[in-house]
């Protein structure tokens, strides 16, 4: 189903996956996440990895773990917006780094962005 890049810690990739789902709206505020075991089987990863993912997400304030019931996405709109921005922010930073490596100026970048924005998807 999902193919993970095994050169990068898998737990980070799963965290990304969940964050993306939240941003896209597949997972809405207040939704219950799959149990650790179910998700592990679905993604074909070690349950401890999923456990760690949920713990990290809870630490970041994105989900809440209710003992005995499960993990839930937070309902806080502001928090969700934060996540979106930070996720986008990470990627944009990486992207800018790559563009700087090929010596692209900000003006050229703006032009290219406008040109290709419509083309994609």
């Amino acid at each position, binding site marked *: 189903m999902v193919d*993970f890049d095994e*050169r990068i810690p898998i737990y980070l990739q799963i965290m990304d996956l969940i964050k993306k789902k939240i941003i896209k709206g597949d997972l809405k505020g207040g939704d219950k996440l799959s149990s650790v075991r179910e998700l592990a*089987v679905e993604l*074909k990863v*070690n349950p*401890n*990895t999923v456990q760690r993912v949920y713990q990290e997400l809870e630490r970041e304030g994105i989900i809440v773990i209710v003992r005995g019931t499960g993990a839930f996405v937070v309902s806080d709109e502001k928090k969700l917006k934060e996540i979106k921005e930070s996720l986008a922010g990470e990627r944009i930073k990486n992207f800018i780094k790559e563009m700087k490596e090929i010596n692209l100026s900000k003006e050229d970048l703006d032009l290219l962005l406008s040109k290709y924005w419509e083309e994609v998807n």
Partner: protein
Amino acid sequence: MGVLEIKGLYKYYGKKCALKNVNLTGDFGEIVGLFGPNGSGKTTLLKLIVGFLRPSSGSIRVDGKDIDHNTRAIVSFLPDNNLLPSWMTIKDAFNFYKDFFPGFEEKRFKDLIDYFNLSMNRKVKELSKGEQEKVCLSLTISRKAKIYLLDEPLGGIDPASRERILTGILKNYREDSLMIISTHLISDVESIADRVIFISQGEILLNEKTEKIREEKKMSVDELFRKTF
């Protein structure tokens, strides 16, 4: 204290040293990948843990106790060649396990057999290699044990069946037991392993958490393995 403790383990076959100064621990809830080239001592190590072979020196303790025939009640071993005599049907094997292993989980086994699309009255000698593996795996992990040792559970099996087997293993994960999977199909197994052990010529080269390897070395376990060997 972990469920498995190995200290200073050596195993000789005559003059040949199969295992040299192995020190390992294993905890409940872990899935450990034991990776090494052929002849590196993987199978020897597993057989020592279950008690089929006896250490030349050093100690192995399972659940705090030395190894004797009672250890086999809490260690479940899946060998890499066929476990079952050819006269048996799957049902015979089921009955055998039910009779000899206290706490054998009948429903779990039946569910697994269904999941693998097999039926109870098939004869062992009529099964393909992949199907035999699935039956033996189902028997092994339906036992209620503290340590599960799987020796090359994916060897010689088509990719589709391999995935099914791995999912079967994951579905039956137990938090209160340790699982050690030895294989050279590392890329299949690395995403389900918490911890990874590299063994070569009887010596442990690496014993590390999987994610730590990815963070620190920025490569997959498979790549690291190829680099090392």
